[in-house]
Every structure is written in C-alpha cells, then in structure tokens.
C-alpha cells in the first residue's frame, strides 16, 4: 500500500431493516494493470461460473496481501456485472452495439464534475472530505467514514465515482453478491473450492478496508408514507454519526439541473424533444434524475407524437411557481385566475402528486356557471334555496378523479389541509358543511383499514375496497364543492401537503430517540419502560442542566462509542422481531444504492 493515495468507499442503503453497505476501495493502479483487469473481466464474463470460482479461490488465500484482495473484489464485482465506470469506458471504446443496447442511465453516466447534476456545494463537501483524508495520515481515527444520504436517484454513487476518478483513485465497491445456488455450490465443491459464506466475505472486506476511507451510501425512501420504512435508515445514520462518521445529505436534484442534463442527452441523441416536454419530465421526476432519464428514454420512443399537446396550459400554471426548486414541489402554486379546465392525464411520470394538484385546483377553486339554464326543467321538484347550486364548470368530479389515478386517502387529506384557504372569511357555515362531509369521508375510509377482515362471502364478487375508495373520494370532493358556496375571491394560494399525520411521525421519531437514550442511560438489559424515561430520566437531566444528550455524551468520551454500538445492534434486533423481518433479509439488503 505504501504511499499510494487510497480511499475506501463503502455505500450503504438501507431500507427495510437492512443496510446495504457497499464499500469501495480506491487504489490507484497503473494503466497496464487496469487493462489486464479489463481483459480478464471480459474473458470471465463468458463463463460466469468459472469467474465466481476464481473469486472464491482468491478469497481462500487468507494471507493474501491487501492489493491482491482488492483485485479479488475488483474481479468479483466485474464478474457479476461491469462496474459503472467500466461500462462507460467500454462505450468509449466504441463497442459496436453500445448505442442500441444500453440504458440511457448507463450510457450518459456523468464523467466529469460538470456533468454531475448534484448541487455544487454537496460535491465540494464530498470532495473535500476525500481530499482531506488523502492529505492527512491514516492515524487519524475519526473522519474515517463518510455517510451520504438521499432519496433514490439523486446521484450518490455517481458523485463518488466522478470524484474518485478526478482524484485518480479507483472505486472499489461492495456489491452484495447474490447467494450461492446449490448447483453452484456442488460445482465449486467438486472443483475443490471451499465455500465461503457471503457474510464472511463481507466481513473480510470490511476488515481489510479499515485502512481506507469509506463512504457509506444510504438510500432513503418512503418518507411520504407512515414513516415506518425510514426508521432503519435513520437509526443507521444516527448511530454512524454518533460513532464519528461525517455526513452529507443529498437533496432531491433541482429542476434546473435535471433539465440541463436531459437537454444534453437530447442533443447527443439528436432527438428533438420540445422544451415543454423536457420541463415536464424534469418536474414529474420528483428530483430523481435516474427516473427522469429513464422517462426521457421512454418518451423518445415515439418522436412522431411530440406535438405540443395541451401542455402549454400545464406549463403556465407550473412555471408561475416562483420557486424552481423541486423541494418546493409540494407547494406548487396554483393561480386561481388561470383557467384550469383542461383535460389531462400524463401517461408517465413518477410523481403522482402533480396530477393530484391539478385536480385539487379544480375542486378547491370550485368554478361554476353563473346562470342555471339546464336544470330548470330537469328536476322533479325544486330545492330549498340553500341546497341549490349552479352547475359546475368541469366534468363530473368522479371523472376528474378517475383521470388522476389517485387514492381517496391523500385526496381527502389534501382537501382537509387546504380547503379553509379557499373559503371566504365570513363563511363559517360553509366551513361546518365542508368539515362534516370530510369527516364522513374519513369515516368511510377508515373501514378500509381493517379491510382484510371482509369475508369473501359477504363481499361476493365485487371488490368492496374499490367501492369504498370511490365513495369516500366522491363524498370528500363533492362535500368540498357543495359546502364551499362562497369561494374566496381569486388570488394566489399555495397548496400545502397534509399535516395530518405529522404528529404520528414525530411521536415515532421521539420514541426512537428515547429508546437510544435508554440504552445509553441504563444498560441494554434494563427493564425500565418508556414512561420512566419520559417522566423521570429526561426531566431529571433537564434539571441537572444538560441541554441535550449530546452534552452528556461529551463527558463520556470514546469508551461510550463501543457501548453505544452494542445498544444499536440490540435495537435493530428488537425492531426485527416487531417488524417480522427475517434474519435473511437483513443479510441480503447489504448492497449499493
């Protein structure tokens, strides 16, 4: 190893229980070494079984020096697939079908810092960290690990790859091997290779990589939902940080940077995509550039259909939003003066909330005719005045709902959150009506929670869930439309996402933090319950003048670190029992993004 700049990169994704740790070792290699590696790799590709065997042999030599080990890893993951960088290189070499065979996400993988759509500051942070590490000596224990978090497709791996290649370091990534199949095992056993469990392989990898800077990538997801999915990743990151890791959080990419990348790809592919479609794809991706590129590839399948469509009206409402930042997506501005009445249902785009916002705009603004010409002869009897309404200036609510592919729950919640902004200030009676219908819808929906209990006999051949969804969405929407008989005068309104479940989330978060503290305060086997923590331990700490646990920790110094780790592991186990995740899955979820 000597004086070479070496960087350990390990990436961890976590999701349900598992954390996927992928570690890459960057070791600088000579060019000739690399090309040898590549040739080998091609040959190996032809017979993947053979290749695996080779890796195994590599691992067998326990006394192998680190370089050899790196090489093994290198081969190992090339055996399964080509490393991202490798793919890029192959393409440059001009492989004959590189063009038609590749996914655009692979083909247009960023190769320079400029091409990277990630925010400059974040790139800089990561780069600084790596450079710092290369500069200072390995003795420095802290700052050995960098954690990068962010949702799927925000360029976590890409950033590492690009920066590493800038630094002249090579990324050696831990990609969880798929498990050994029985036939494979037999084959290996016959040819004299010892079986090494995947877990062992990983442990060896981690052991060897302690000398090299390590980057752990954590993919966060499911934030929008109950918060259940995020608990593992949050815990993981938290414990890593407490153990001294640095952390960089990647945000969803901005609309502009996604747009720039998409335009570049369009230029290189020479497909002439109208700018408003690029805009739209960028917006619908929710800050996920991989999805944006994949959508673009799909979109470009049909260049003949690239008419402007009625997107013009769509882009009006959206570009009016002052903030270009996709983080602000949930606050999409809707202008009430704009005529929102256009048919539209996009065939693709990941973020379903976009279409949700359009439908919400219609429902909340509640545009109506000013004279009721049609209904005069229609009704069998006349209604009391307070039950009369002018006809709606839109399709029937059920049709709009159908077009937006939405579930009833988010619709009801969004309406509940926002409807008051759209009522005129004095119309307290309207608010009563709206609230009462929304609560009816809520009640109807709650039955679908215990939907599993429906016996097939009662349900017959109909799907009761389906009717429930439709009815409650109808009641919520129509309740808002009917109730809001004095819509507030046209003005700008931001649509907020529902706060309804935030208390739940917060509660969970606090509970989790307290669990951690509990483990630290007592030992793991303590039988003190949560209530003791909340009513005695924490207040006492407060009185003693500790502002937070952090203060306490400072006093405790390094020894605490190891203790805490034990606590966290235990915590994970504990959660596993609750969540019913199998041991197996935890092992398997170790992977890169």
């Amino acid at each position: 190893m000597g004086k070479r700049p070496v960087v350990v990169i390990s990436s961890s994704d976590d999701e349900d229980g598992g954390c996927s740790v992928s570690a890459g070792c960057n070791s600088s290699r000579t060019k000739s070494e690399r090309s040898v590696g590549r040739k080998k790799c091609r040959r190996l590709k032809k017979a993947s079984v053979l290749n695996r065997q080779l890796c195994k042999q590599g691992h067998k030599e326990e006394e192998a020096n680190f370089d050899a080990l790196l090489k093994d890893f290198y081969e190992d993951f090339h055996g399964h697939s080509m490393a991202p960088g490798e793919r890029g290189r192959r393409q440059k070499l001009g492989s004959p079908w590189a063009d038609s065979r590749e996914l655009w996400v692979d083909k247009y993988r960023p190769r320079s810092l400029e091409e990277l759509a990630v925010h400059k500051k974040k790139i800089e942070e990561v780069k600084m960290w790596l450079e710092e590490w290369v500069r200072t000596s390995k003795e420095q224990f802290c700052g050995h690990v960098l954690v990068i978090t962010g949702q799927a497709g925000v360029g976590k791996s890409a950033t590492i790859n690009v920066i590493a290649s800038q630094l002249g370091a090579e990324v050696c990534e831990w990609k969880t091997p798929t498990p050994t199949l029985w036939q494979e095992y037999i084959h290996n056993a016959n040819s004299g290779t010892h079986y090494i469990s995947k877990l062992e392989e990983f442990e060896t990898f981690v052991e060897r990589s302690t000398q090299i800077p390590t980057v752990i990538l954590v993919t966060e997801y499911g934030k929008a939902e109950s918060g259940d999915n995020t608990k593992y990743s949050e815990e993981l990151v938290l414990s890593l940080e407490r153990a001294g890791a640095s952390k960089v959080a990647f945000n969803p990419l901005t609309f502009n940077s996604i747009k720039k990348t998409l335009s570049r790809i369009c230029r290189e592919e020479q497909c002439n995509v109208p700018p408003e479609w690029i805009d739209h794809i960028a917006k619908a991706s929710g800050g996920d550039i991989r999805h944006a590129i994949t959508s673009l590839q799909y979109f470009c399948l049909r260049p003949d259909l690239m008419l402007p469509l009625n997107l013009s009206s769509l882009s009006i409402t959206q570009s009016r939003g002052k903030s270009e930042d996709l983080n602000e997506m949930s606050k999409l501005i809707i202008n009430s003066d704009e005529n929102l009445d256009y048919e539209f249902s996009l065939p693709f785009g990941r973020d379903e909330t976009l279409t949700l916002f359009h439908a919400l705009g219609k429902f909340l603004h509640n545009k109506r005719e000013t004279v009721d010409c049609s209904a005069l002869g229609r009704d069998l009897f006349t209604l009391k005045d307070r039950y009369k309404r002018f006809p709606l200036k839109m399709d029937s609510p059920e049709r709009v709902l159908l077009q937006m592919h939405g579930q009833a729950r988010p619709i009801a919640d969004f309406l509940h959150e926002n409807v008051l902004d759209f009522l005129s200030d004095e119309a307290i009676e309207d608010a009563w009506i709206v609230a009462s219908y929304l609560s009816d819808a809520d009640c109807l929906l709650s039955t679908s929670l215990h939907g599993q209990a429906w016996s097939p006999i009662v349900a017959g051949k109909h799907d009761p869930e389906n009717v429930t969804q439709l009815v409650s969405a109808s009641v919520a929407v129509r309740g808002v439309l009917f109730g809001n008989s004095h819509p507030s005068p046209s003005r700008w309104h931001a649509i907020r996402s529902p706060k309804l479940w935030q208390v739940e989330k917060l509660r969970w978060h606090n509970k989790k933090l307290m669990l951690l503290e509990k483990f630290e305060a007592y030992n793991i086997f303590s039988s003190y319950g949560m209530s003791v923590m909340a009513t005695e331990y924490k207040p006492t700490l407060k009185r003693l003048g500790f502002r937070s646990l952090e203060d306490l920790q400072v006093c405790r110094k390094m020894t605490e670190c190891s203790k805490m780790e034990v606590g966290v592991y235990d915590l994970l186990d504990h959660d596993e029992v609750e969540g019913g995740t199998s041991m197996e899955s935890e092992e398997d979820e170790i992977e890169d993004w």
Partner: protein
Amino acid sequence: MAAASSSSSSANGYEIPWVEKYRPTKVADVVGNADAVSRLQVIARDGNMPNLILAGPPGTGKTTSILALAHELLGENCKEAVLELNASDDRGIDVVRNKIKMFAQKKVTLPPGQHKIIILDEADSMTSGAQQALRRTMEIYSNSTRFALACNTSSKIIEPIQSRCALVRFSRLSDQEILSRLMIVVEAEKVPYVPEGLEAIIFTADGDMRQGLNNLQATHSGFRFINQENVFKVCDQPHPLHIKSMVRNVLEGKFEDACSGLKQLYDLGYSPTDIITTLFRIIKNYDMAEYLKLEFLKETGFAHMRICDGVGSFLQLSGLLAKLSLVRETAKAF
C-alpha cells in the same frame, strides 16, 4: 406463453376461456391506451427496452401488452429468454434471489439490441423484502436482462425500483374500446346478439375488458343469445334499469314503489353487496341535483360500510331507501 393459444377455434370438448383465446398476441392489437401502446410498438421494433412499470386497473391489457411485447421482441427465443412470474408463483426473497438470478445468469444468444426479459406480473403483491432483493438484481444484470413489472398501483412499488423504471400508466378502457374488442369476438364466435345485450355487457364490464369477455362468454354458453335479460342473469348482477327505477321512485316520492322494487330484487336472491354496488354506480351517473347526489352517495357509502361489516340484512337496504327519501324531504322546497 399466451401466444401459443392463438385464435384457432379448434377446441373441441371444453371451451378455452375467451380471455385467453382472444388475448392479443401483437402489441398493435391491444386496444385503448394509445400512447402507451404506440411506444411499446416502437420497443417491439427497435429493441433496447428500458425497465418498465405498467400500472393501471385490472383488465386493461397490462399483462397482455407485456407478453405480446416480449413475444414480438424475442420471436422464437421467447421461450428461452423470457421469465414470467406472477402472483400465483411464490415470489418471496428466495425466488427473487434464486430463480431470477439463475435466469439472469443464463447465457442466451440474442441479436444485438435485445435483452432477456423478466416479467413480474402483479408486482405490487410482492413483499417489500423481495422488492429489495429485486432492485439489486435489476442493476447488476442490466446489461443483459431487462424487467417489466405490471401492477395496479405503482405506489406499492418501492421507490428505488420506481427510480429505475419508466412508468407506463394504463387507464380504464372506454365503452367504445371495449365494444370494438367485443365485436371482434362476437363475429369470430358467431354469437347471436342484440345491441342492448352488448350494452349490458359493457355496463357490467365497467372498463375492465377481462370482465367484459368473461361475461360475454358466460352469457353465450348459458343462453346462446346476448340480450340484457340474459346478461344480468348470468352476471348475477341486479338489472341496472331495475335499480335505476328504484332511485327514480325515491326521487319522485314514491317510497312504496321503491321498496317493493327492492323486495323483488332481494327475493331474487341478490346479495346486499351486489345491490349496493350497482346502486352506487347508478347514483354516481344519475342526473340529479348536486346536493341530492352528494347525500345519496354518502348514505350509500355508509350502508355499504355497514354491509361490509357484516350487517347485510334487508333492513339495512330498506333503511337506506328511507334515508334517501328523508334527504329528499329535507331538501325539497314547499
């Protein structure tokens, strides 16, 4: 593969389900969802399929499109180069790991631009653990293998997988689209029909082609003639016109007529769920004042809820009619 059961009607003895017999084998034959279908056709021609998620309600041609696409794309390699797993297969983590891995590693010689295809039907019923394992596989083998997932709601697919796929939305088929397909089948099978009969089929299909074809076949094999009467008998659905007249009676203040209509249906043996489901669909489309519709839907929703909770008595249904009448009384100007 579904393609095997082509439209040769030489099935003597037992009848092949028409949904299978008339399952389109070419992407171009899939009706509706024009945008999606035309793009899939381009893929069928040019290859290099991106990973796809097809999302939409049942019976709109998701599975059909994928199968047809795979078939057109891979031709005679289809058997070799396509792995199809649906909800009836066990798709736990182990299967994703082993079956899919084995398939992905398998060497199949394909022309340039083509990839092996793994089809995961009803992917939203996969556990999130299995989806986790899947997303790895997707990336590792992306140079040789592509994935097509079909599901009803894309939100049940974990984000990291959504991130790796283009989302193709399918929506309910229009009555016209269903009719066009029904006509093809009706002609091929020489089914005697009256137009109102097909209309009834379309009503019962409710945008679901599978339902439509099944009902057509059931009516045909039961009665050899497609008219309204037969269709609703076979489909075991209360006749929508009957229910509609119940609603009209309520609106006209003829409560007793409405009740006797209900009694008739109940005596015919329709289950409360059948009745309430049809009632909901009728009210949804009935032309009545906004307030009335809102209240009617609400009351129907609550009645449905109670019935689903097990209170499926005749009393509930009569109670519902009474409540609807009360709504009318409340709203009516004197």
